[in-house]
């Protein structure tokens, strides 16, 4: 009974993977007349060497790490703060919670377009108006602070997810533990540091793991806002440019394999942390 499902799943995963691997070892320039039908020339590791030694490679890895790290830092720090706030009893709790989750339901392309045109536009954007109101020169966000702006936009989308998971973690904390620490003489800040934060450790690692995997492949937000210019070319975006702009499928595929390796290194690293945290 399992066989069809396994075959389907394997095919689903393996076909693109095997194709990528194959393309990464051949010369494949469709605009120059190469095609699978005519047969492709085997070039060994040439694509890998070219992709790796290209002057864009290391900067793109660095930008990827900066972007993922930045978004993670913002989402975890503010996620914890928001979760603490939402955990407080307050008026209209249900509505506030739904509002907080809302950004998560907006498609990445749409949210990037909204931020780009309505908020960050240097002439008509809300921020520009705000800056002018205070007599300041509007900032050309996506040009002068491009990486930070994209980190901000992506964080805005992912913060609800982080907040929600962390909120459920806070709510699962046994109130007697907090009371015990209160009797033991811990101040609110100490209660947070010694009781609440360690309790959330597991949820924080899980959020980090899930988000990292998704954030490594950020694309729409970059495509819509800067198109990879102004120091926002991540590894994913570089591969896209190699395949689509330069029409070099072999080179792009080699980049894809690098990306797979990078993602796996990070995943193994994170899994070990999660494993450690889940052990207790």
């Amino acid at each position, binding site marked *: 009974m399992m066989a069809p499902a396994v075959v389907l799943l394997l095919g689903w995963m393996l076909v693109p993977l095997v194709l990528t691997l194959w393309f990464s070892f051949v010369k494949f320039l469709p605009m120059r007349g190469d095609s699978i039908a005519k047969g492709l020339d085997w070039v060994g590791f040439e694509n890998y060497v070219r992709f790796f030694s290209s002057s864009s490679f290391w900067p793109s890895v660095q930008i990827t790490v900066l972007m993922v790290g930045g978004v993670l830092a913002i989402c975890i720090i503010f996620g914890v703060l928001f979760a603490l706030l939402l955990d407080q009893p307050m008026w209209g709790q249900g509505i506030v919670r739904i509002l907080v989750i809302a950004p998560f339901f907006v498609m990445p392309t749409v949210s990037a377009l909204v931020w780009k045109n309505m908020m960050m536009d240097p002439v008509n954007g809300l921020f520009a108006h705000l800056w002018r109101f205070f007599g300041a020169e509007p900032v050309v966000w996506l040009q002068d602070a491009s990486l930070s702006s994209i980190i901000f936009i992506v964080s805005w989308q992912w913060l609800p997810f982080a907040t929600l998971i962390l909120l459920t973690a806070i709510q699962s904390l*046994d109130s*007697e533990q907090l009371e*015990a620490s*209160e*009797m*033991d*003489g811990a101040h609110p800040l100490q209660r947070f540091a010694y*009781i609440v934060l360690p309790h959330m450790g597991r949820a924080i690692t899980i959020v980090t793991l899930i988000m990292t995997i998704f954030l490594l492949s950020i694309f729409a937000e970059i495509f819509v806002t800067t198109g990879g210019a102004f120091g926002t070319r991540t590894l994913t975006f570089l591969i896209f440019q190699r395949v689509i702009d330069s029409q070099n499928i072999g080179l792009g595929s080699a980049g894809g394999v690098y990306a797979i390796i990078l993602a796996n290194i990070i995943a193994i690293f994170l899994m070990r942390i999660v494993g450690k945290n889940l052990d*207790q």
Partner: protein
Amino acid sequence: MGQIELKQVTKSFGNTQVIPPLDLTIHEGEFTVFVGPSGCGKSTLLRLIAGLEDISSGHIEIDGTDATSLVPAKRGLAMVFQSYALYPHMSVRKNIAFPLKMAKMDQAEIDKRVNAAAEVLNLKDYIDRRPGQLSGGQRQRVAIGRAIVREPSAFLFDEPLSNLDAALRVGMRLEISELHKRLKTTMVYVTHDQVEAMTMADKIVVLQAGVIEQIGSPLELYRTPRNVFVAGFIGSPKMNLITGEEAAKYDAHTIGVRPEHIDVVDGEGEWNGTVGVAEHLGSDTFFHIHNTGLGEMLTVRAIGDVSLKHGDKIGLNPRKNEMHRFDAAGLRIA
């Protein structure tokens, strides 16, 4: 030190008053047990003393000074929770040291006190484990350890044994009693189990619906229950409570006789019935007696292993001098 005084203390949650005005003095060094049925406000009362709940009106004095508006940490009391409330990510050592660390005590003194507590409570073998790796009884000991290192002026226990199995419960009961004998610190202990109350307490406070029904030593409550509720609550098995004609013979609305104060006689007795279920405990046997014409089933104790069978006729004589009489309001008639 460790005298706790409640003066006209009340507590309401929203519109429902859980504790009507209540006065109570817990003397220094006393082992006081709050006992009562589930939901009668025992935990609430304890939490009011601890400062974990704010009182709605009245005053709390600890060692003669008003503690009504003091935060829990400043009251000098230590609490052991029903769920133990250990910190799961800290080792046993860190758990016990936590209150001392919060008090910014220096490390040498912390180590000294933690080691002393570990010694007293037999925690040494698992001092570096996490709470998750301990059994229920061991966790209970850690929770007590965390309370004693602070050297509080009083300990508060909220049903600390209710999560343990029966055998362990008896053992821990003894350990806590021992601890009290040695430390001589005031202890306030909440339980719904009257056996725990009877075996451990210097002073029992019987509560019902937030009202104190009686305060007294275990034997006072056993010998002279102030009303029908206390009479029925204290003692195991329960006192036989009889109303109606038979009670009227004794000029009372209700009469009560404990199972151990009814003698089994040969032939006809003052009361007669048939034997129902027999509970053989070895040292004692408890018989349920039906068809006595008294309205209620009677429970009778016979010492040793008595050979009465289900359905046998039995004659009973209650001991008149051990009989309790109550009026229509349920109060004891002297």
